[in-house]
């Protein structure tokens, strides 16, 4: 159980780091949001689930899973709200021709 938890935490940290690198490297707001939203949700979900596996059967693990469920619901919702605000306020997106 400990090894499984540590492996899950390691993969979650990898996804969080990848999302941060995508956030600073992509050329446009929408592509940055593509990197940030999905990598961030999956990474924190993996970290919290890994820590719940590490703790074993306890009340803290159940609360960790509840936090993970909360993040699983709310993080895509926040990303969607921010992207809708950008779209409705007329933010245009990156194309290859004028980006170079």
């Amino acid at each position: 159980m400990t090894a499984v938890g540590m492996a899950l935490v390691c993969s979650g940290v990898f996804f969080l780091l990848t999302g941060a690198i995508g956030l600073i490297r992509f050329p446009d707001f929408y592509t940055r949001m593509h990197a940030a939203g999905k990598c961030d949700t999956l990474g924190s979900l993996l970290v919290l689930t890994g820590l719940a596996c590490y703790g074993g059967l306890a009340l803290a693990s159940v609360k960790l899973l509840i936090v993970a469920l909360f993040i699983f619901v709310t993080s895509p919702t926040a990303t969607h709200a921010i992207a809708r605000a950008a779209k409705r306020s007329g933010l245009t997106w990156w194309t290859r021709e004028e980006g170079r």
Partner: protein
Amino acid sequence: MSSTFFLGASIVILVAVLLSLYRVVRGPSIIDRIIGVNVIGTKTVAVIVLTGHLFDRVEFFIDIALLYALINFIGALALSRYFERKGVLVKRSGAAQ
């Protein structure tokens, strides 16, 4: 051994927070800053729970993490709703800099 592991994971996540902070400081439009702050908040929840395992006080720190996630979500929704109504004055993001 496990405390070293949690400390290393926290340090790597904090490096990712620093990388996101670059986007918050430098971002060409205000909505880049909003998504950067949202990403930092989500990473902070993971760091808070890892800190709880580091100090062997997981029960306290989980409540703090839950509260932080709630405040992060409400803040992102409020900011996006406000700027959706106000309109985001942005440059062309691809052609910026």
